[in-house]
């Protein structure tokens, strides 16, 4: 009897120790959740290095030239989002972050920055503005970075922002599916949601009104590209008829919910609720998010990152933004603990992540500082 009690107490203490470690890894999460200036500025300083460095595709190692280009693009694009969000929140950071966002945007639109998309399409995305070619893998995300930079008060890329928005508005108005191709023959709802967020920000900044188009696109997303059972978005659909080509997934849904928050907080909340109820798990203070609904066994890919015991690295990271946007402090802290456990944040005058690198630092900067639209 005494032996059993001893084992029970030992086990309980060990579990409590894991919980204490999780709380330790989550230290700082409260300050970030509350949007404290120094917590956000430290993350921005970490990303500064990757914007100052003249990164190239060779700095990434996905094994695919296109994916290396996407990661390089994502590093700068998410950096702009992070700078814009923190600049909007803290007026004292605004001028500095507007300048940093401008640097990142400048690198995004260089020939090297858009090469991954140009290679996939066989034509340059900026030269194709005003044509039938949609380039949503590049222009969709670029439009969000441009519109947020404009919202921050930086007018240096105003003309380009106007052109990109006009190009995509024209293409979406003609689209029966309500979705455009990311690459020739490839349609991903998540990529399209970046433009929905961009258009809403653009309208708020310029006073233009694309409300009817925005509503049509978001209703289309809900009715055609959302799995009725799980409430999650399909990751890929058929460019001909919009039929799902992939399962509903956590990574795409979480990132889409983040982008949709720029346009419609309530629709973003509906997706977050589906993730929270169907995919979110808590392991002694470490929060994780499944890549696929329960019962689906599948491996990871470039979108999900590694999938371990069903839990996705990307889905877990992306959901941090939703927890902050929708006021879920507990999930924010527990997801931050997991991010710290596997990401390994290191303060070197700015926050870097041992296993994050440029794209990880920039993603976490944007996701952890996600702000409800003002």
């Amino acid at each position: 009897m005494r032996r059993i009690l001893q084992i029970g107490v030992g086990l309980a203490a060990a579990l409590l120790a894991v919980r204490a470690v999780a709380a330790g890894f989550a230290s700082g999460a409260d300050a970030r959740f509350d949007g404290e200036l120094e917590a956000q500025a430290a993350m921005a300083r970490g990303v500064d290095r990757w914007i100052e460095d003249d990164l190239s595709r060779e700095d990434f190692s996905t094994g695919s030239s296109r994916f290396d280009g996407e990661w390089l693009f994502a590093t700068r694009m998410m950096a702009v989002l992070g700078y814009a969000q923190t600049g909007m929140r803290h007026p004292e950071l605004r001028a500095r972050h507007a300048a940093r966002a401008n640097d990142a945007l400048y690198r995004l639109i260089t020939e090297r920055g858009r090469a991954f998309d140009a290679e996939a399409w066989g034509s340059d995305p900026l030269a194709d503005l005003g044509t039938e070619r949609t380039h949503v893998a590049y222009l969709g995300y670029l439009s969000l970075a441009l519109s947020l930079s404009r919202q921050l008060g930086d007018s240096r890329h105003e003309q380009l922002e106007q052109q990109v928005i006009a190009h995509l508005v024209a293409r979406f108005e003609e689209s029966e599916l309500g979705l455009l191709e990311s690459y020739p023959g490839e349609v991903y709802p998540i990529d399209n949601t970046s433009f929905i967020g961009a258009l809403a920000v653009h309208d708020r900044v310029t006073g233009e009104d694309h409300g009817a188009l925005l509503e049509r696109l978001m209703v289309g997303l809900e009715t055609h590209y959302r799995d009725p059972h799980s409430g999650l978005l399909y990751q890929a659909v058929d460019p001909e008829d919009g039929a799902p080509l992939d399962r509903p997934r956590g990574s795409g849904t979480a990132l889409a919910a983040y982008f949709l928050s720029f346009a419609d907080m309530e629709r973003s909340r509906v997706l977050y609720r589906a993730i929270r109820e169907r995919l979110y798990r808590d392991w002694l203070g470490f929060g994780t998010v499944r890549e696929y609904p329960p019962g689906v066994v599948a491996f990871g890919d470039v979108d999900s990152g590694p999938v371990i015991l069903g839990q996705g690295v990307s889905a877990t990271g992306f959901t941090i933004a939703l927890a902050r946007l929708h006021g879920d402090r507990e999930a924010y802290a527990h997801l931050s603990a997991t991010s710290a456990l596997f990401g390994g944040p290191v303060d070197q005058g700015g926050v870097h992540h041992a296993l994050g690198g440029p794209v990880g630092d920039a993603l976490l900067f944007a996701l952890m500082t996600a702000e409800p639209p003002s």
Partner: protein
Amino acid sequence: MSRQWPKWLLGALALLLADRALAHLCVATNVAGALLSPGGATLEALGIALAFLLARLGFVLCFALGVGLLAARALSGLARRVT
């Protein structure tokens, strides 16, 4: 077995120190993507990233075991005193 707790906690401390050093090495050598997408990573980058991850998970495991064994040992000592 429960007398082994100091060794586990010392092991946890050693792994924590290794973890810190490896984290800085990971940032300095930019091995970050090695585990996220190992397709194009060099063996050296994979090695450093894996060593960091193992040190980190090892620390959590050793610390939890050390604390568990310490608690079991404390209970055993208390029971002996009471009886």
